[in-house]
């Protein structure tokens, strides 16, 4: 019954226009729902966080959040990260765009931000749902020579920075799941991806943050439960402020890491993490155990059931 309701809501959400409104009767005809059901379903969609304007008589439409304003982001940028930034309407992926910019001479801190990604990607080619204006999709060029010599800690550093940015702007105490997913009450709110290339010799750091999504904006079968700032009850959803806060926090945490060493980052990560102390399974190895510690280069120490300790550098924990 519940599953059926979700399917109906998803169907209705998918056919809601973003331009001229459609009446309840029109939506009913297009969705095989009754007109009365459409009115109730719109209320249910609104309750879930969907931005639907209008009423049964004037018709309904899906509202899009305001567009990003490059000037408003730039005005807030304090450091080198984001000191040059490009805001694109639509890109294949911000990762590819940032790499392209790096190839054309874009240096340390240059950021590529997009309103929409046609093929947004996560780790190992997984899709990252990136609908128009609903999230913050950004990739930042980091020159390796500007990073500490062993930069394995970069994704964790970025996780701490993005968590701080969200807490500052949206008032949510988000948590970190090893290595660098940002979670809110067990659901994924943001993800981080880092790609290292040889030519140009840079790392591109990608951040995908769900801001305005309602449950029906995520693909029906996502790998992990997903959430957004709206769904989590954020105090602000200003994407310009969020973008600037992410860039500034990243700048600050990179500085701290360079100046004070990895211990500061590892400590900050520990303070915000939900992984240590939990039982985890290491995908592909059959190893199960308890996550007990984090090394200074960000690897996870897992104690298996026989009492043996392993250091995990790469896995879905």
């Amino acid at each position, binding site marked *: 019954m519940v599953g059926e309701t979700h399917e109906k809501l998803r169907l209705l959400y998918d056919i809601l226009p973003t331009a001229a409104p459609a009446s309840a009767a029109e939506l009913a005809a297009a969705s095989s729902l009754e007109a009365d059901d459409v009115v109730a379903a719109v209320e249910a969609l609104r309750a879930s966080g969907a931005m639907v304007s209008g009423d049964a008589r004037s018709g309904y439409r899906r509202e899009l959040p305001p567009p990003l304003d*490059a*000037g408003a982001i*730039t*005005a807030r*940028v304090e*450091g*080198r990260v*984001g*000191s*040059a*930034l*490009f805001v*694109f*309407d*639509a*890109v294949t992926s911000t990762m590819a765009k940032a790499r392209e910019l790096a190839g*054309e*001479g874009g240096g*340390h801190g240059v950021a590529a931000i997009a309103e929409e990604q046609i093929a947004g*990607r996560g*780790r*190992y*080619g*997984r899709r990252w749902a990136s609908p128009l204006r609903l999230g913050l999709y950004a990739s930042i060029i980091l*020159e*390796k*020579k*500007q*990073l*500490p*010599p*062993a*930069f*394995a*800690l*970069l*994704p*964790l550093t970025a996780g701490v920075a993005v968590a701080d940015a969200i807490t500052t702007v949206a008032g949510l105490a988000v948590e970190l799941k090893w*290595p*660098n997913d940002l979670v809110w009450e067990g659901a994924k709110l943001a993800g*981080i*991806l*880092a*790609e*290292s*290339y*040889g*030519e140009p010799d840079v*790392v591109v750091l990608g951040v995908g943050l769900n801001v305005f999504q309602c449950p029906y904006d995520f693909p029906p079968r996502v790998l992990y439960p997903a959430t957004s700032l709206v769904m989590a009850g954020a105090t602000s959803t200003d994407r310009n402020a969020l973008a600037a806060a992410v860039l500034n926090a990243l700048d600050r945490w990179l*500085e701290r890491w*360079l*100046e004070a060493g990895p211990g500061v980052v590892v400590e900050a990560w520990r303070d915000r993490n939900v992984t240590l102390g939990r039982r985890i399974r290491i995908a*592909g*190895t059959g190893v199960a155990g308890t996550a007990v510690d984090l090394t200074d*280069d*960000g*690897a996870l120490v897992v104690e298996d059931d026989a009492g043996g300790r392993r250091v995990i*550098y*790469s*896995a879905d924990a």
Partner: protein
Amino acid sequence: MNIGKLKKILDLMDERGIAEIEVRSVFRTVRISRAAAGANVSFISAGPVDPALAPAGKAAAPLPAGEAAAAAAAEAEAAEEDLIVIKSPMVGTFYRAPAPDVDSFVEEGDKVSRGQVLCIIEAMKIMNEIESEHAGTVAQIHVENAAPVEYGQPIFSLKPA
């Protein structure tokens, strides 16, 4: 911003149908908006960012070292056959393709050029593209897709060109 760079941005905007773009450099901000009739460039002053804030970094070093015994064995073998052994520069997970449903970067028997991407090794969620330092033919791929690799573990053997 020099004229060449500006032209590149304008071309990019044309190509993608982008109406407005803002570029902030260390010393100033440039906003470029493209009207239907043509391009219109405006300069906005912005507070300079102190470039001295950036600490000088050191050269990137490989991730923690592991055992090299296996590497030595493979190297000895390779020397006999006149092959170049490419070793994993880090501990991580070896991927032959950028995603599960796409072609591998290289297959055995493929000719590769210097700088060509051979594989990705993931460590700590950093996807590291590993490039060939030599031109040649892929003689052997030593590791299965998605398998863990150690520092110094042989991953490819190349027959030099």
